[in-house]
């Protein structure tokens, strides 16, 4: 296995069951992720910097501004109080910049309508419990894709300030990266995928 030369990706794992938290933590660490585990949706939101579970106005906490950046959130579906689905909505619908963080839902029940509902609400992946080591390899692509999108948004914001002539110059590397990201965005519409594990 290659030695990581940069900071490992950081995953926030949410599960109310203690043995399951220990398991997911171990799975993630074995796969070279940095891990934070919490036992509820509300604690997850606290960690992410969103305060209050009620219908307070969306907080625009940019993902990079978190003290410790979170690259992916993996959450159990069935939890008392705030379910994984509720948490998913808070992140994908009610917050502004946190919606770019990939969210994976875990459930011990294989219910197609549940899976579809989660994917429609913006979940990037659905794992059936018990989660296995082989499932971990599915996480990094989502993180990399979201980073690609993030760079695209950042560059787009920068570009809008500068000369528009630069945008059409094909030899400029950052532009071709941007265009590639744009192509990727168009080719892979997320919400319609019915892929699940």
């Amino acid at each position, binding site marked *: 296995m290659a030695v990581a030369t940069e900071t490992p990706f950081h995953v926030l794992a949410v599960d109310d*069951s203690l*043995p399951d938290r*220990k398991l997911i933590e171990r799975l993630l660490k074995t796969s070279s992720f940095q891990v934070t585990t919490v036992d509820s949706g509300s604690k997850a939101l606290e960690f992410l910097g969103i305060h209050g579970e009620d219908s307070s106005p969306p907080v625009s906490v940019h993902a990079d501004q978190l003290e410790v950046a979170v690259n992916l959130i993996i959450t159990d579906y069935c939890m008392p109080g705030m379910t994984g689905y509720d948490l998913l909505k808070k992140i994908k619908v009610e917050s502004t910049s946190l919606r770019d963080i990939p969210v994976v839902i875990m459930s011990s029940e294989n219910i197609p309508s549940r899976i579809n509902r989660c994917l429609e609400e913006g979940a990037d992946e659905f794992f059936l419990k018990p989660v296995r080591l082989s499932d971990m390899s599915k996480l990094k692509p989502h993180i990399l894709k979201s980073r690609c999108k993030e760079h695209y948004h950042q560059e787009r914001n920068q570009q809008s300030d500068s000369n528009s002539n630069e945008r059409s110059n094909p030899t400029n590397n950052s532009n071709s990266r941007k265009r590639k990201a744009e192509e990727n965005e168009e080719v892979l519409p997320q919400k319609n995928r019915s892929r699940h594990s």
Partner: protein
Amino acid sequence: MDYSNLRRQIISMKKSLFDQGYLDEQFNQLEELQDDSSPNFVEEVVALFFKDSSRLLTNIERALEKYPQDFYRLDSLAHQFKGSGSSIGALRMKNECSMFKAHCSDRNLEGCRRSLQKMKREHATLKQKLETYFQLLRQVGPRERAVNSWK
């Protein structure tokens, strides 16, 4: 020190736990996650499971007494129990939990009571068997454990 006898016992015990349906493949998955950086992982996660599940069994028992018509609550508790059981590969317990949940669906109180007794027995039996298994493993020491595959 000669570990071959001990090793044979461990392999034989594990095989019988699988053959008798106490454990399933998920237990192997746990053992694969154990290494030098986390040498007691399996024992630790199993201990957490038994602590958590004992609490759930008590709660189920109380719920059967105090809220016998609340099958939603009973099913919800059994669901938690089943979930963490399947995470450690506790096959028999997971199956008995499914039976309990089926009785909840049928609103069969007597069925739930019988099933709970079975769940408690399975719980106690698995706990005892795994304690013995881990004791044997401890005797061979962490280096021997990490180096050898017990499959």
